[in-house]
Structures are given as C-alpha cells and as structure tokens.
C-alpha cells in the first residue's frame, strides 16, 4: 500500500474519530457535569442533602461504570437504533460512547467538586448566596482546573473506546486498523494508524494540561511548569508574593 492510497483512508478515519469523540465529549459534559455536582450536593453534609436521590444517581453511575465498553456497546444496540435510526457508522457510535463516558466523567467531576474547600461554600452562604450561587460562583470556578483535567482523561478514554466502536462498524481509526492492519496484513497502515493515535492522544493531553494550568491560580503552579513560562507574560512570572503587610 502506498502513501497515496493510505492518505484518503487515513484522513477519513481521523475525521470520523474526531467526530465521534467530539460529539460524545459534548454529551458527556452536558450529562456528566450536572450529575457530578448533584452527587456532591445530595451527599451527606451537602447543600441539598437527599439520601434517596444520591443513592439512585450513584447506582446509575456505578452501573454505567461497571460494564466493559464492548458489552455496553452491544447491549445498547436497540437503544442506539431508537435514537439515531441506525446501528452502523460514526453517528451510531456516538450513543454508546456518550453513555459510557457520562458516568465516567460524572465521577471525575464529583471528585473535583468535592475537593473545593468547604470554607468557600460557607463564605458564599454568609454573603447571602443561594445554593445555585454557591455552585455557580464557588464550586464550579474553583474546581474548573480539576474538571478540565478530568475532561482530558475522559477524551483520551473516548479515543480508546472509539477504536473499539470501530470494531462494530463505526468507522474511524480503530476500524481502519482492524480492516486493513489486522485482516489484510497491511503492516504499514497499521504502523501509521498507531502513530496517528499516539499523536492525537498526546495533543489532547497537552491541550488539556495547558488549559488546566492556565485556569489554575493556586500558588506555585508557575514554578511547577517551567515550559509555561514561555507562554506567559514575563511580568506575571515575576510577581512574587509580597511580604507581610
């Protein structure tokens, strides 16, 4: 197989993968973020303490997390047909991808939001803020760097899942690797696919790390990330904490 033959296949596969992962990511954020916050708020000692809601949401999330993705994908086939009308192609793959990623991301959001100092919640309450204000002004902005890190992990996981989805006819890089690399012994294409996946995942991770760091204004993140100095205005990097007032 020559590069000229590979190139259109690869381009199509990369687009399919990006499409599947992108759409599934949007759904995971839309679903996982509120679920994760709800898990924290309804937990014991939370602002909306509600054992019933907490148990139910927790159970749903756990069920979603405990199924291996391959099984989830197959089990969801009737549901997928109901939602998108087909079970083949990138569009159809978005459904199991999103269903798999929502609980995953919800748990990561839960952990991130739980990390927020309870003192901040109290401070906003003492100012007269409602529960919604606490979520919007304190919990979300303060946990944002961790949430972004969690999202990065979710996207990378989704890239992996999307390759599995390729196995049942979703298209994308996984599909390419199986049909050409595995079934037709096209080692060249296989290697290129692997390289593309590595580059893709590395780029996602890098972008996620950069975003998380630039959102974090906690203490010494500057010195912990020397390469970020290059991207920052020098004035900021020099702004050392002043001595006692």
């Amino acid at each position, binding site marked *: 197989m020559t590069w000229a033959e590979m190139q259109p296949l690869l381009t199509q596969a990369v687009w399919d993968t990006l499409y599947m992962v992108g759409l599934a990511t949007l759904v995971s954020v839309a679903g996982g973020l509120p679920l994760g916050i709800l898990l924290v708020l309804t937990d014991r000692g939370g602002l909306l303490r509600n054992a019933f809601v907490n148990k139910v949401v927790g159970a749903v999330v756990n069920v979603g997390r405990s199924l291996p993705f391959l099984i989830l994908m197959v089990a969801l086939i009737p549901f997928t047909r109901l939602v998108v009308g087909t079970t083949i192609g990138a569009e159809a793959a978005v459904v199991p991808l999103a269903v798999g990623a929502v609980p995953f991301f919800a748990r990561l959001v839960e952990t991130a939001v739980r990390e927020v100092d309870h003192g901040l919640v109290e*401070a906003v*309450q003492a*100012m*007269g803020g409602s529960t919604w204000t606490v979520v919007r002004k304190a919990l979300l*902005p303060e946990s944002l760097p961790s949430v972004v890190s969690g999202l990065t992990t979710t996207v990378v996981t989704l890239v992996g899942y999307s390759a599995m989805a390729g196995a049942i006819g979703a298209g994308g890089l996984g599909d390419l690797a199986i049909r050409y690399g595995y079934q037709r012994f096209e080692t060249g294409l296989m290697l290129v696919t692997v390289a593309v996946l590595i580059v893709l995942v590395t780029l996602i991770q890098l972008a996620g790390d950069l975003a998380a760091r630039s959102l974090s204004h906690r203490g*010494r993140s500057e010195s912990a990330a020397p390469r970020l100095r290059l991207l920052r205005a020098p004035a900021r990097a020099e702004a050392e*904490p*002043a001595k006692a007032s």
Partner: protein
Amino acid sequence: MITTTGLKKVYRSRGREVVALDGVDLHVREGEVYGVVGRSGAGKSTLIRCVNLLERPTSGTVTVAGQDLTALAGGSRRAGAELRAARSRIGMVFQHFNLLSSRTVQDNVELPLEILGLSGAARSRKALDLLDLVGLADRARAYPAQLSGGQKQRVGIARALAGDPKVLLSDEATSALDPETTRSVLQLLRDLNRQLGLTVLLITHEMEVVKQICDSAALMKGGRIVESGTVPELLAAPGGELARELFPVGGVPSGPGGTVIDVTFHDDSTGQPVISQLARTYNIDVSILGAAVETVGGRRVGRMRVELPGTFEENVVPVGFLREQGLQVEVAPAGAAQAATPEENSK
C-alpha cells in the same frame, strides 16, 4: 445589636449527642467590639456560626439589628430569600480567609456585590474603594495565592464590608497570622469599628486580641458563657477567670505569717510611687511577689501582688491607705497564689 437567648446546639451522630452550645445568652451592644474567648471545643465557633445561621441552633433565638433571624429561617434547612438578604447585611471574616483562588483580589471583593445584583461599574467602583480602605488598592489585580496571610485577611475584611454591614463577625480572623500581622489586622478592625460604627463580634483563643481591641468580652466553657462584661468591669473583678487570664499576676508568698494582697491601679495612679510611700509612711517591709502594667482596651492598667508582714488585722491601716490612693485592693484568697502558676498563665 446582636442578642442570643437560650441558644442551644446539639449535634447528633450515630446515636451520640454532643452539646456544643448549652443555653447561651449573648448581648452585644451597638458599636462595640465584643470578644468571645475560650479553648478549642468550648463552642465559640458554633456560637458565631449560629449568629448568621450558617449553623441552625437546636433551640433559642438569634436577633441581629432588631431582626429575629431564627424566625426568618423557620424550620427549613435551606436558607430562604429573607434569611439570605439578612445574611448579606452581616459581614463575616474567616480564619482561613476563604478567598476564591480563581478570582483576582478585586473580583473576590466584588462577589458579594454580584450576589446583591449591582451593575458592573458600580461593583468595580465599590470594590476599589473598599480595597483602598484596607490599604490594598495596588493589589487589586493580584490573585490570592500571590498575597501574604495578612493581605489575604485584609481582602477578606474588604469583602465582608461590601454589603455595607452594620455587624461584622470574625471567626478567629487572626489565628493563622503571625503576631505582628495580627496587630495590624486588629488595628484595622478597630479603625473600621470607630470609622464606620461597625459592631464587631469576634471569637478568638488569644487573650492578646481581647487586650488590644475589645470593649467587652465573654469567656466560654463547655458550651456556656461563664463570665462576661465590659473589659474594665472584668478587670475590676479580681477573682474572675478572665481578669486573671487577661492580666496574670503570679507570685508565691514567702512563708506563713504574711498577708498577700492584690492591688489594681488604673490610668493616673499607675504613675504614683504608692508602694514606697506605703513603706515609708508605715515603716513596713513590702515584698512584691509579682507585678505587671499593661494597656488593655486603650487604658493603662497595673496589677501587683504584694506581701505585707503580719496578719490581715495588723494591716488594716496600710490597706486603707492604698484604697485612699484610689487603688483597688483585694486580699488574695488562700490558694489564689497557687492558682496563678506560670503554666496556667501562658495559655
């Protein structure tokens, strides 16, 4: 300004009951700085959290600026609109500052104004004014992580003042700061109390805080207030625990046969050579067992424990002389000298 009556708070967990507040009656007058002192676990923190109902009291009432907050809260666990409006008029500063690390100093001060629904321009004007008031106008664009502890607490104070409160609650505001920074933050609170007529309720475990800025103080133990009053009143009650803690004077009598007396002198009499006058006039040997002069609540107060030879009956005349000089004289009760041993005083 702040009144609590019969405030009780009982925590229940796994069948065990912990009584954090056991019927607290607190009365803070308008415009004063009121300090509640006590060791950890005495219930101070619960008390201050009950004042703005961050913690719901099990029973009892809380009235702030004539408004019964416990009635506003009703039975529901979540804060309704009325209680939230009342809270926005009570400022609060915290031991660990509780600033949002994701926001700049200015945006932190603007947060309560956002909650109050002010427009962007009005918010930023007010926030800058407040930062100016606490002496941090030049750090408006910095993030909390770039500030020192004292600066963070100043931001916390500016934020607490954003809603133009009449009452400021301070939850161990200086306990995480070094002594020098503590003094400057306390001075700021004192200035705000004077300039804005702000009523300040603060809790602390540091006697220094009471000495420096409080008009009145209360001592908490085991969920109850065991002593309270204005600082001069407390000092004038020599048997009181707060007076002893505020102003520890120790000293063990040299032996039996002497009379130990505690002498307290205020303001002008601190400059008088009363002891040498006493010794000369009555020709007696006075031994000074312990003495200290300090500034408490802006007034110079001195305390001295002296031993006069002979029994109390033999010393009625010299004691009368001291009283004539405008000093407060108490005969130390037996065992009082032992009660004020150095390790007790150091806390």
